[in-house]
């Protein structure tokens, strides 16, 4: 089968989740499925380099649309920041769970950029839930071997994730 299970991880009441040494040259396409059970929800993705260091350069870029069942939606874009790729649109009330589905491409190529596409939704305690659909990248030519999930500032998360790689064979 072409989706290969790579890694799973669970966490409880933490502000950030580091997933290290999971991207290798075995795959160029990865899929992250992460869910937050309670707390402030998943917030931002930063990448981790081959030295185990979280990349905090002012170079993360994303473009996304925020979606709301109340009809409020808009664009959320950034051309360069150090807080990462914002993958969740947090509601104005306490979150009650969230899901992130994210495809990550080309993380270990030192001559290429790391790109991603993502969609997420987050539930809320007393307001409408929010969703976000978008794309992002880290243009620096790092070898990326992992990622960090940061929560929205000031909050903790309890959740879990699974990571898969998509196998590609030259069948010609």
């Amino acid at each position, binding site marked *: 089968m072409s989706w290969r299970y790579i890694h799973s991880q669970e966490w409880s009441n933490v502000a950030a989740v580091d997933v290290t040494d999971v991207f290798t040259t075995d795959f160029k396409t990865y899929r992250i499925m992460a869910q937050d059970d309670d707390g402030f929800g998943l917030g931002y993705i930063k990448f981790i380099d081959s030295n185990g260091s979280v990349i905090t350069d002012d170079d993360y870029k994303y473009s996304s649309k925020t979606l709301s069942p109340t009809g409020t939606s808009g664009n959320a874009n950034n051309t360069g920041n150090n807080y990462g790729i914002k993958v969740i649109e947090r509601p104005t009330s306490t979150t009650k769970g969230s899901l992130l589905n994210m495809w990550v491409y080309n993380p270990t190529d030192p001559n290429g950029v790391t790109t991603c596409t993502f969609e997420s939704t987050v539930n809320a305690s007393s307001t409408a839930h929010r969703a976000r659909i978008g*794309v992002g990248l880290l243009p620096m030519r790092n070898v990326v071997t992992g990622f960090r999930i940061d929560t929205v500032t000031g909050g903790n998360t309890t959740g879990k994730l699974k990571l898969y790689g998509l196998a590609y*064979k*030259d069948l010609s």
Partner: protein
Amino acid sequence: MSNGLVQIASKTITSNTASFYFTGLTEDCVYLLNFQGVQMENQNADIYIRGGNSGTEDTTAQYQYGVVSYYSPGSINNGATGQTGWIINFVNAHANGNGFNGWALLYDWYPATARPGMLHASANLYTGGGGVYGSRGGSQFFNDISWSEVHLGFGGNIASGEIGLYKYV
């Protein structure tokens, strides 16, 4: 009974290629086209996707798409009917490692009682503005038809990259 995703075809490109196609879409299931590090010879060369049979692409002007083109300074809603193909990306991805990556799910290409469609997402470095550029959306063909091939053509040559065709089983 098996579950999962099975690769059924590939195209590894190492020199300029204007177009190619995959065969074997002969089951009523969802197919995945996955693009890895696709670099174009020139800037702004879009990718067109069409169905086909017996080696001939269907250029009937019945392709429709509703797409949002994302880039860091903003985003643009793009939609069209009566087109001769679907556009998966308004590509600004060329050379120097700035290729684009993405996926497309092809559905209802078989049998002919339905209308073929596509759901896709892609991203690349926007070399013109230094941001991210992406394309996401849904598409349909406005006739009931069955296709066994997916044809990919480009506004310009594709210089390198890996494109895999998979099916969900």
